[in-house]
C-alpha cells in the first residue's frame, strides 16, 4: 500500500540504527527478548517514535447502547423512559442524568446524535461497525483495530499492536464475531491479542530450565526453518503460525504490563471494581506503555431486550465514570492529544418499550461519543426528532464514522489497499466524507 502515514516506515535516519540494534539483540543470544525494547534505548529514535505515536482506545459497547439513556435523552416524552436529562458543560446540551461525570467534561467530548445505519441484527451490525463497510464476500475487510494496528503499530514494539480486553461471556454474537477473521486481507499479523477476565496473560513464563541464550537460539532456529518453509510453499497458514509465534514471544516480554496488580490501588478504585472499569484502566496503562490500539469490550450488556431501565441504571453510570476517568487521566498524562477515545456500539435501541420492559435493536437513529486526538471537544453534531425516532439533521453512517476515526488519527481515509488479484479496495470507499464538525 502506498501510504505515507504508515508509521512503521518512520523515515528517521535512525531507522538503520534500530535495525542494527535489533539484529545485534538477536545475534548476541545472551540478550533476552527484552532487546526488542532495547531499540528504544537510542534516544533520538525513541523521541521520534514517541512524538509520532498515535493511539486509539475503543470502548466497544457491544449489544447496542440506548441513545435515550446516554447521549440523546428525551425526558418527558413517551419514548423517554424514567431517566431525566441533565445540563452539561456545553450550554443547551443535555445528557442523560445517568451521566453526570461526562456532563461535567462535555467540553472534552464530541457527540454525534445522528447515526443511521442499515443493519439491525448483531452479527451483521458488528461486522459493519467494526469493518466500516458492507460485507463483500469472499473478500474480508479488516476491522478498525487491524487497520489501526497496521497503521499505528511500531516495528519491534514489545506491546501487541492490537489488544482486545474482554471477559468473554459465553454463547453470544460477539463471541461468534471474535472467532472470525478480524484482520481480513491484512493478514494474521494484525489479529488481536485477546486478554480478559483474569487480567493476566497465562502461560507466558519462560521455563527456568531454559537459559535465555537457549531460548533465543531455539526461537531463531524455528524462525529460520519456518520462514524458509513459508517462502517455499507460499503458505498463508505457515505465515499465520509465524505471526502467532512472534506474538507469543512479544507477549512473553510484556506480560507484566497486563498485570493490574502493578497499578496503583487508588487508580483501580477510581475506575470502579467491575471488569469494564478495570479493563479500561488497563487500556490506559497499555497506551502509556505505547500500545497503539486497545479495544475494551465487556460482553454484550447493552443488549437490553429485557429490563432496559433496570440494567441501564447500572451500566450507564459505570460507563459514565469510565469515560470520565479515562479522558481525564489521558489528559493529565499528556496523552489525550495523541489518543483517540471512542465509545460506541453497533446500533442504538428502539424508542418504544417492548413487553419485557426492554428496548430492541434500532439502527435508524443512534449516538456515539469520541474524545482526544484530532477531535473537537464540545462538538455535538446531528439531531433526532422530539421522540428520537428519526434523524432530522446531518445523518451519518459507518463510512463517515471510519473516515472520521482515520482522519482524527492522521491516517489517509481513502488510501487504496495493495492487494494483488483483488478488486480495488480503499480504507473508506467512495471518498465518503468524515464528520468534519467534530474534527479539529
Amino acid at each position, binding site marked *: 500500500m502506498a501510504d505515507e502515514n504508515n508509521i512503521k516506515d518512520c523515515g528517521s535516519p535512525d531507522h538503520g540504527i534500530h535495525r542494527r540494534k535489533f539484529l545485534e539483540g538477536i545475534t548476541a543470544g545472551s540478550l533476552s527478548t527484552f532487546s526488542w525494547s532495547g531499540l528504544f534505548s537510542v534516544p533520538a529514535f525513541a523521541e521520534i517514535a514517541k512524538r509520532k505515536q498515535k493511539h486509539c482506545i475503543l470502548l466497544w459497547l457491544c449489544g447496542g447502547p440506548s441513545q435515550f439513556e446516554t447521549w440523546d435523552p428525551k425526558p418527558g416524552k413517551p419514548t423517554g423512559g424514567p431517566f431525566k436529562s441533565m445540563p452539561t458543560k456545553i450550554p443547551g446540551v443535555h445528557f442523560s442524568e445517568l451521566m453526570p461525570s461526562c456532563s461535567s467534561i462535555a467540553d472534552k467530548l464530541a457527540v454525534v446524535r445522528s447515526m443511521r445505519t442499515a443493519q439491525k441484527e448483531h452479527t451483521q451490525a458488528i461486522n459493519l461497525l467494526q469493518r466500516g463497510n458492507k460485507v463483500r464476500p469472499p473478500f474480508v475487510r479488516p476491522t478498525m483495530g487491524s487497520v489501526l494496528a497496521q497503521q499505528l503499530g511500531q516495528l519491534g514494539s514489545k506491546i501487541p499492536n492490537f489488544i482486545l480486553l474482554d471477559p468473554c461471556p459465553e454463547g453470544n454474537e460477539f463471541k461468534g464475531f471474535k472467532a472470525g477473521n478480524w484482520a481480513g486481507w491484512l493478514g494474521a499479523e494484525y489479529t488481536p491479542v485477546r486478554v480478559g477476565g483474569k487480567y493476566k496473560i497465562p502461560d507466558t513464563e519462560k521455563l527456568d530450565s531454559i537459559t535465555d541464550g537457549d531460548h533465543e537460539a531455539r526461537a531463531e532456529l524455528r524462525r529460520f526453518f519456518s520462514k524458509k518453509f513459508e517462502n517455499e510453499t507460499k503458505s498463508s497458514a505457515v505465515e499465520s503460525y509465524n505471526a502467532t509465534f512472534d506474538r507469543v514471544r512479544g507477549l512473553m516480554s510484556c506480560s507484566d504490563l497486563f498485570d493490574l496488580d502493578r497499578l496503583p490501588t487508588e487508580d483501580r478504585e477510581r475506575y470502579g471494581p467491575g471488569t469494564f472499569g478495570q479493563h479500561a484502566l488497563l487500556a490506559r496503562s497499555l497506551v502509556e506503555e505505547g500500545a497503539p490500539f486497545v479495544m475494551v469490550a465487556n460482553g454484550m450488556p447493552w443488549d437490553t431486550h429485557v429490563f432496559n431501565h433496570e440494567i441501564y*441504571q447500572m451500566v450507564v453510570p459505570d460507563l459514565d465514570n469510565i469515560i470520565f476517568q479515562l479522558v481525564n487521566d489521558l489528559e493529565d498524562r499528556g496523552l489525550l492529544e495523541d489518543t483517540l477515545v471512542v465509545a460506541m456500539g453497533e446500533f442504538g435501541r428502539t424508542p418504544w418499550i417492548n*413487553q419485557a420492559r426492554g428496548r430492541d435493536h434500532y439502527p435508524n437513529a443512534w449516538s456515539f461519543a469520541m474524545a482526544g486526538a484530532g477531535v473537537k471537544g464540545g462538538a455535538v453534531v446531528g439531531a433526532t426528532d422530539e421522540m428520537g425516532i428519526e434523524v432530522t439533521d446531518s445523518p451519518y453512517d459507518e463510512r463517515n464514522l471510519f473516515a472520521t476515526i482515520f482522519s482524527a488519527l492522521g491516517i489517509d481515509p481513502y488510501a487504496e489497499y495493495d492487494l494483488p488479484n483483488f478488486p480495488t479496495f480503499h480504507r473508506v470507499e467512495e471518498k465518503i466524507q468524515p464528520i468534519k464538525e467534530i474534527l479539529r
Partner: protein
Amino acid sequence: MKVEIKKKTEIKLPSHCLSMAPGPDERLYAACVDGGVYSLDKKGHQDKIISHGNFVSGVNVSNGLIVSTDYDGNIKWTSIDSGKEQRKIKAHKFWSWQSRVSPDSKMIGSVTGQYLVGGYKYEPSYETEPSIKVFNALSGEIIYEFSHIPPVQSLAFSNDSRYLAAGNLMGEVRVWDLSSGKMYTSWNTPSFTGWGIIKGHYYTGGIFSIGFSPDDCSIYLAGMGSTRDPAAGNGKQLWEEFSWKDQGMPPKMKRSALDSEIGQGLMETLSFHPDGAFFVMAGRMFKGNWNIALFDTDKGNILCSQNSGIRCSDILFSEDGTKFYIGGGKSQGKKKVDGFDSWGRIQGFEINIS
C-alpha cells in the same frame, strides 16, 4: 376445589399500568408509566386525577387518601373527595420501586435502591440511602428507615401489620418487627437471581413480589428463576414459600412452583384471594401456556391458568372475592402518525369456585 376464571373486561390505558388500588363506588385507581394515576369507573370511563413527573410505581388508598409513589422517589397524598394534593415528600433519591399501605391503614412503606457496580462480578454496591422507609400514612412523618442491599424491589406488610418484609435483586429477604423496629429475620434464596453467562456478566431478576400467607406464617416470593442470558427473560415462572416465624429456627423453604406446571417468564405480582384458599401469580409469558395462574394455597398446584396476552404488573381482588383485575400492558408499539396507541391494559376476570 375447582376454580375457573373468565375474562370479562379489558380497559385500555394510555400507558403500562404498574399498580392498582380500589376506590369508592367500585372505582379502580391505576398508576401508569406516563406519570398519571387514572380513576376508572365500572364502565371503564377514565380520568387522570393525579400527575407525577415520572413513572408511577404505586397507588394505594388509605384514610380517604390516595397515596401514590413514583420513579422520582416522591410520595404524594391526594384527597379522594376533593382531588387536591394534600402532601408530597421526597422519600428517596432513586426510584420508589414499590409501595404498600399496611392492612391497618396506619403505615405506608416504600422501597428504593439503584443497582450500581460493587464488585468484579457486578455485585450490587452498598446502599447510599436507607432502602426501606416507613411513613405514618396520615401525617407523612417518617417512622422507620431500614437498611438492605439495593436495589430493593418489593415489600409487603403482614396481615396483622406487625411485620414488614422486603426483597432485593440478589434474592435476600429481610423482615422487620414494626413493634420494635428491629430486624426479625433474614434469608437468601438464589433462585430468583441470574448472573449473565451469556451476553454480559451482571445480575438480573430478583424478588418482584412478596406476600404474607393469610395466617402470616409463610412468606411467598415471586419473580423469575435464574437465567444464564440476562437479555432473554427466559427464567422459570417462579414462586417460593418460606416459613419464617418459628422462634429459634432459621427460615426454611417449604414449597415452590412445580416444575411440571410452569413455563418461562418474569412473574411480577402475587396476591392472595380474600378467603386465602388460593393465590394468583401473574407476569409475562416467555414460553409456556400461561401468564396468570391460580395456585391452591394448601397444595401449591395450579387450579387454573390463562394466557392473557399482556405483561401483568399488579393483581387486585374485589372485596367479595368474585373478581380480580390484572394491571399491565402490551408492547408500546411503533409510533403512528397521531402518536402511540394506548398500550396499558386492565383486564377483569370473573372467578367461579365450585
